């Protein structure tokens, strides 16, 4: 985890459904009610950077040592419906619509809650989509002289798929694309040398 990493910070802004486990007089503003007590049992959406720590912090309650300030649910982006869709066909889900930092978010949620099922689906999704990313990147990276932009030469379905990539996948795409492109440049350049 990198302190200065922008994607990590942006992931921290993802909203998590949380339930407060105690009354807190000063925190009404978190539920759009400044000045009022935030009641135990109130459901609020909190950013991950806040939810994460409130969920693992020790309340100091000796009778209930496992109790934290809040309980939380999986955010919809990595919730049951999305996981079911990914299980059916990882390629057909534009995961960027769920979250631009889909994998980062999934990782945080897996660390917070032991979710074996989540891990299996997310990993399979990542690998299956990576193979597709490589194919598309190779096609577009090989076409070195055509330039970039919409002229990727991978067809409408391909571009649709690429639009749905999350940040990790965009980086992967760029890596595969640049690899193919610089190899192509080497081949083209060698004829001009010596």
């Amino acid at each position, binding site marked *: 985890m990198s302190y200065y990493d*922008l994607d990590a910070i942006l992931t921290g802004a993802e909203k998590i459904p949380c339930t407060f486990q105690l009354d807190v007089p000063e925190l009404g503003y*978190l539920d759009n009610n400044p000045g009022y007590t935030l009641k135990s049992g109130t459901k609020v959406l909190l950013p991950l950077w806040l939810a994460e*720590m409130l969920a693992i912090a020790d309340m100091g309650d000796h009778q209930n040592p496992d109790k934290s*300030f809040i309980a939380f649910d999986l955010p919809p982006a990595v919730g049951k419906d999305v996981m079911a869709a990914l299980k059916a066909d990882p390629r057909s889900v534009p995961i960027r619509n769920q979250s631009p930092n889909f994998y980062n978010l999934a990782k945080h949620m897996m660390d917070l809650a032991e979710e074996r099922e989540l891990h299996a689906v997310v990993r399979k999704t990542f690998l299956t989509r990576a193979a597709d990313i490589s194919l598309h990147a190779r096609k577009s990276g090989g076409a070195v002289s055509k330039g970039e932009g919409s002229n990727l030469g991978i067809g409408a379905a391909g571009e649709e798929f690429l639009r749905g990539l999350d940040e990790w996948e965009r980086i992967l795409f760029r890596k595969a694309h640049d690899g193919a492109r610089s190899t192509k440049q080497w081949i083209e350049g060698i004829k001009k040398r010596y």
Partner: protein
Amino acid sequence: MPMYGDAGLKLVQHAKRTQNLTHLPPYQTELVRSVAKEVRDLHKDATNLLEPFLKVQGSFDPSTDPATACTLLVNHLSMRRNKRCLLAYHRTRTDKLEDLVWSGHDVLDLSAQQTGGESGSSSLSPQEEDYVRQYGDLLAAFKGHWTDIDLTGSLEPPKDLFIDVRVLKDAGEIQTEYGAINLTKNSQFFVRQGDVERLIAQGYLQKLG
């Protein structure tokens, strides 16, 4: 209503866009100010909240008052979040500024041009302008230890150090590392590319092969 950390997030979103730009967009003075103010307000709140406990008990024991402990934690996390956003924003920009210094740009000049050259307006904050100057000096000193290898030179592997050229029009005598060469039309030379790049661009010489 706006949450603590929302303004900080805006800064980071700015930074994220900045990463993919070739130029440096204007410094977000107002946003930076409001995030810093948020931190001061949060700190004031925390101090006020703690005061009665410190007065009476000398310290605060979270287990006796979980609600206050929770408020203080939220407060503390919000300050830390804002600090992280501010640092990441500034760091992204100094990274970019350093890159420009490495590639030999006159950053201060460049930034004035981008804003249309109006006097007094720059996409850099005054502090950033200071930093660019200081970093420029620092890099110059570092480079000075490695003058023989031209530390800021190209990181693409060397190729075509010497090239064959044909003279397209008489250009008279030029000075090269090897001394003078007389360029008469249609003669051919094998020369250091760096010596003749300008003459090629001006159409006096043609690169062969």
